[in-house]
């Protein structure tokens, strides 16, 4: 295709990507380099239904004047990235000097909010993604071999977990696993332990969130692999059967290589989506036990009483983008190599 036609072809997508992706990212990056102006405080006599006393309050006019002069705030450079709520470089160096061993150092790092969130996010991503792919593949194989009159309804039911809105699905599960709910009390009866509560222990909460994540994302992998299975040429399969390949060898040497582009595609999407895990944490009220990078951005922006920390949220967003980029490097290099080898 001549270059000119290509440019015209992708121009609409390019424009919308610049407007809706590049510009907001640039704006967030700029925001992450600034912090709010100093608040000018004064002491005043405050009277309320319970008495009068001298209290500190903000001098609204003086503070507003500062803001009008420099609306973005004070330039902070990369200090927001290295402060305690993010990479916490000075806290880590301090812990390294005082800690008594690897375990102590590790637990002190886990005390920092960003690293705590990162630990859960990475665990969630690297446990949910392989399970989703394997389960999705097995379900696709299973559904493919069903009788045709059963296939339709089975596909419908297998897609349901993905169609349910994440917030609603997780909320309903949250009520079911409550100690008074049906799943919670069944588990208590099975393990014969009346104080067993999935919400109380961090380990159980993490397991619950990961199980929910697998349940919710498997239909996506299933439907992609199922569609791919329909395109496998019958001749190659029949040839392998004639050559005496067992069922497992057929899968390994014919089906999986054919589906490899789809497997890479699903891995890519799952890695990106799972790294941004957020709705289950809100739906399960699990923020006491598990936080993720997206959750701490939400917490900074929630803004009750106008206490929004825009610079902090922007810095965490940038770090999340860098994290996703790092995760995708292996997959992208593989695609790049394949692309290069094909053009040769």
């Amino acid at each position: 295709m001549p270059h000119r036609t290509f440019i015209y072809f992708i121009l609409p997508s390019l424009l919308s990507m610049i407007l809706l992706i590049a510009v907001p990212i640039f704006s967030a990056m700029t925001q992450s380099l600034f912090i709010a102006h100093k608040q000018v405080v004064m002491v005043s006599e405050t009277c309320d239904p319970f008495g009068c006393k001298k209290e500190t309050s903000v001098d609204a006019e003086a503070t507003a004047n500062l803001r009008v002069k420099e609306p973005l705030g004070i330039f902070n450079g990369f200090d927001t990235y290295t402060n305690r709520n993010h990479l916490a470089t000075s806290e880590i160096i301090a812990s390294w000097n005082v800690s008594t061993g690897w375990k102590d150092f590790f637990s002190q790092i886990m005390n920092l909010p960003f690293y705590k969130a990162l630990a859960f996010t990475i665990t969630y991503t690297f446990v949910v993604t392989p399970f989703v792919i394997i389960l999705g593949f097995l379900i696709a194989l299973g559904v493919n071999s069903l009788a045709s009159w059963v296939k339709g309804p089975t596909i419908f039911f297998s897609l349901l977990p993905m169609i349910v809105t994440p917030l609603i699905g997780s909320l309903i599960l949250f009520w079911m696993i409550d100690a008074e709910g049906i799943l919670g009390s069944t588990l208590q009866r099975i393990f014969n332990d009346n104080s067993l509560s999935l919400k109380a222990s961090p380990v159980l909460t993490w397991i619950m969130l990961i199980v929910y994540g697998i349940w919710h994302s498997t239909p996506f992998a299933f439907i992609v692999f199922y569609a791919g299975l329909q395109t496998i040429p019958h001749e190659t399969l029949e040839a392998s059967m004639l050559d005496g390949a067992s069922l497992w060898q057929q899968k390994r040497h014919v089906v999986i290589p054919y589906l490899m582009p789809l497997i890479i595609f699903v891995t890519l999407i799952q890695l990106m989506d799972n790294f941004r895990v957020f709705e289950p944490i809100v739906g399960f009220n699990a923020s006491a036990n598990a936080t993720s990078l997206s959750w701490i951005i939400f917490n900074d922006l929630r803004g009750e009483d106008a206490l929004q920390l825009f610079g902090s949220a922007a810095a965490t967003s940038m770090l999340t983008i860098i994290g996703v980029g790092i995760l995708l490097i292996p997959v992208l290099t593989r695609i790049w190599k394949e692309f290069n080898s094909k053009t040769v």
Partner: protein
Amino acid sequence: MKIIKILPLVFAGIIIMGSSAFAKCGISGGSIRILANDFPAIHAVLSAAEKCAGGGVTFTKNTTKEHRNIVVAGLTANPAEFTSAVVANSSIVPLLNDGLIRPLNDLVAKHGRGLKKHQLITINGKIMAVAFMANAQHFYYRKDILKKAGVGVPTSYEDVLSAAKAIRAKGNMQYPFAFNTKKGWNLGEEFINMYLGYNGQLFKPGSPEASINNSKGVATLKMIKSLTEYSNPDFLTFDSNATQALWEGGKLAMATMWGSRAAAVLDNKGSTPEVTSNTNLASAPTVGGGSTPATTLWWDGFTIAKNISNKDAEATFIAMMNGISTEMVKSNNDAAVWLIEGFVPGKAATGVSASASAGATPYPMLPYAGLLHSALGSELAEFLQGNESAQQALADVEAAYTASAKEKGFL
């Protein structure tokens, strides 16, 4: 013919007289737009204020639990999205910080003659809000369960612990106590209440530096931990709706809950007569041998926005004065602990009045109190799960608060 000619004039005259008859409350016109929290007492006030609508006066209200997330943005716009915001001690602070509400001295002089002095929230002589109800977390107990366990009514949290131990020992209830320990704002509030019960100082005097990492802070955390041992293990998800539901379901013998829940807890809906008739209210318990109840006093009141026309401001003030009139209080006496003339304290008000007369501290109206409150709410959960020591938890809170205060420009 003459009659037919003057008929339209007659009709016009009737219509004009009719519409001016609809200008109720003496408001000539204007737009009233109110933002408030969502609970029954607020609904009572706003329904009474809504009676002023009609005849050139438009009235809209937005009652939502998320009001604190939208109030600053709503009032910063010019003209403001809302002409009045119903606020409390903590939610008025961002409006004061950003200069979003107007002083009410002239409006009070003109239309607020019936107001009592303690209803006026003044800062340096300027009236910034008119309060109409008080609230506080206080003690609720089931007199039948305490009697069965053979314990008296606890007056301190140490008494609460021994009463809970006795109730559990007798096999009556495994988890007899609950309070609002949900991670976040609720947990922070419980810490602040308990810490002030130990007479602790949240900040160094006159400075935004936090000072909670001391022996009183450690004692506070230890007391909260001991109390959670008598709570259902899911206590980190308990907000006020959850504790009220547990109480009405008969699952608790003692609890610390908001006074504004009293009317709902004591009514005939949502619970059994056994629970409702045996529920008693008392002042918040003291702690650590002190005499201050371990709770904070809150007021709710209305403010008038700055970025609106004077006509809208006056119309809104008159409507809200109607909303907090003595007639409204007489028909909704038990909905809240009203600060208004004509309120007769009933059973639902005993807890808040008792806490106030026992000398409880009001929640601090400091510009940086909210940041410390958030830091407490997020960092204390780990200590309660047994994953870190009290000193470490308090150091984490101070570090988190310092980082946010630096970012907001207080330090």
